């Protein structure tokens, strides 16, 4: 039988494995930098780090607070990344899906990356203190319905066996089902309240590996399709556009939701779209490198029962 609490003891061995491999890679000159996690200032916390010197590899770690999807440091936030040579990156299963998507969209090249995979039992929700223990209550919602505890296709995986994992009910799945059962008017009331909270800080956009447009449609004013001020009408438009632009691409790393200061359940929309695209076109994002996504390809037999 499965246990109730995820066993995080493997993270010590995972940390050791990452450090040793990073040290070997940098010493041998196989990579010019490693993007990984290091301990943060608050007890138990961790934060992203870019290591370019083999002597610094002891600073790398992996823990229940290694939540960030580091993929974003390879594309949008790559200021501190050396321009030449291979880059090593520490990836959880969920982060790997984003990398796979970015490769499909020609934003990254597999041969320029060295993937250090992490056998992962889960990370903490963003709403609890970093020193909290990982339990069925404190685990991040995305980890409850994770199907990628062991990332596949990495160049290196620490030699650690995954412990038996607890069976946790999916909060996203349940919430999507709850909303689907409501009437359109009730759903409108729900989302209206959620969107009204948005302050248009665009943290969700900034952190998203797939929001890499040089100029976002929502920032343009000639023509202005989306009102830019943080008010109900423009907010609603922003959230609809955001969900639409990520449909078929988002693999659910839920970083948007983690960074949102107003606690808007952003990933719910993305996951709903992922569910619909799976039903409509049998497509799941992040599983393999595809140069066409579900909304950039078609078949002649696609459903058109909604068209007169």
């Amino acid at each position, binding site marked *: 039988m499965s246990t109730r609490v995820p066993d995080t003891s493997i993270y010590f061995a995972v940390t050791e494995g990452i450090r040793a491999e990073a040290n070997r890679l940098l010493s041998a000159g196989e990579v010019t930098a490693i993007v990984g996690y290091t301990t943060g200032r608050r007890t138990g916390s961790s934060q992203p780090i870019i290591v370019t010197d083999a002597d610094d590899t002891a600073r790398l770690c992996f823990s229940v607070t290694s939540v960030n999807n580091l993929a974003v440091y390879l594309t949008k936030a790559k200021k501190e990344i050396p321009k030449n040579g291979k880059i090593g990156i520490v990836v959880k299963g969920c982060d790997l899906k984003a990398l796979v998507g970015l490769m499909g969209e020609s934003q990254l090249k597999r041969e320029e990356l060295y993937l250090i995979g992490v056998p992962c039992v889960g990370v903490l929700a963003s709403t609890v203190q970093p020193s909290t223990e990982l339990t069925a209550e404190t685990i991040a919602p995305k980890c409850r319905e994770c199907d990628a505890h062991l990332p596949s296709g990495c160049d290196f995986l620490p030699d650690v066996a995954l412990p038996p994992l607890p069976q946790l009910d999916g909060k996203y799945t349940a919430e999507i089902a709850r909303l689907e059962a409501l009437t*359109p008017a009730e759903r409108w009331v*729900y989302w209206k309240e959620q969107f009204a909270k948005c302050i248009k800080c665009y943290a969700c956009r900034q952190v998203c590996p797939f929001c890499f447009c040089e100029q976002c449609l929502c920032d343009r004013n000639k023509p202005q*399709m989306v009102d830019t001020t943080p008010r109900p009408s423009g907010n609603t438009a922003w959230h609809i556009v955001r969900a639409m632009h990520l449909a078929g691409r988002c693999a659910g790393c839920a970083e948007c939701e983690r960074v949102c200061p107003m606690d808007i359940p952003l990933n719910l929309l993305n996951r*709903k779209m992922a569910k619909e695209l799976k039903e409509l076109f049998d497509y799941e994002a992040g599983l393999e490198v595809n140069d066409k996504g*579900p909304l950039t390809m*078609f078949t002649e037999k696609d459903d058109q029962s*909604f068209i007169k």
Partner: protein
Amino acid sequence: MNHTTQHSFEPKIIAFVCTWCTYAGADLAGTSRMQYPANVRVLKFPCTGRIDPVFILKAFQQGADGVLVSGCHPGDCHYIAGNFHARRRFAAFRKLLEFIGVDLNRLQFSWVSAAEGGKWVEVVTDLTEKVRAMGPMVEFKELALEEQWSGVIDTPELKEAYNAI
């Protein structure tokens, strides 16, 4: 159909159509002197593939009560595959709108060729009457109104001040 009937509500219908098929179809309806509701405002695009879902959103925000998107039948696209792409995109977009809480009865998609003036009349008439029965689309308009404190005069003090003007 008796077009002289007086209705208490005339819905605004925005039709996004492609220039090669549906626009020509609507033109045919016109030159053949077929009658259809004057509620529809036609916006011409090169192809359904050019119709961004955000246009539909914008239409609702600007006061549309119903939206029609129409183009060439599959296989007839002037740009070969534009309507195939559009078909997928709108299949997904419908699901999103539905999840947000928009009544999909206000959004119609159709294929109308240059020879189908009759079908154009039918599609436009059906949508107009359906939306007329549903009444005005208030959701997006309300959002815009909420942004202005004076949008809805709902406090007694404001009402009094307003009536005094």
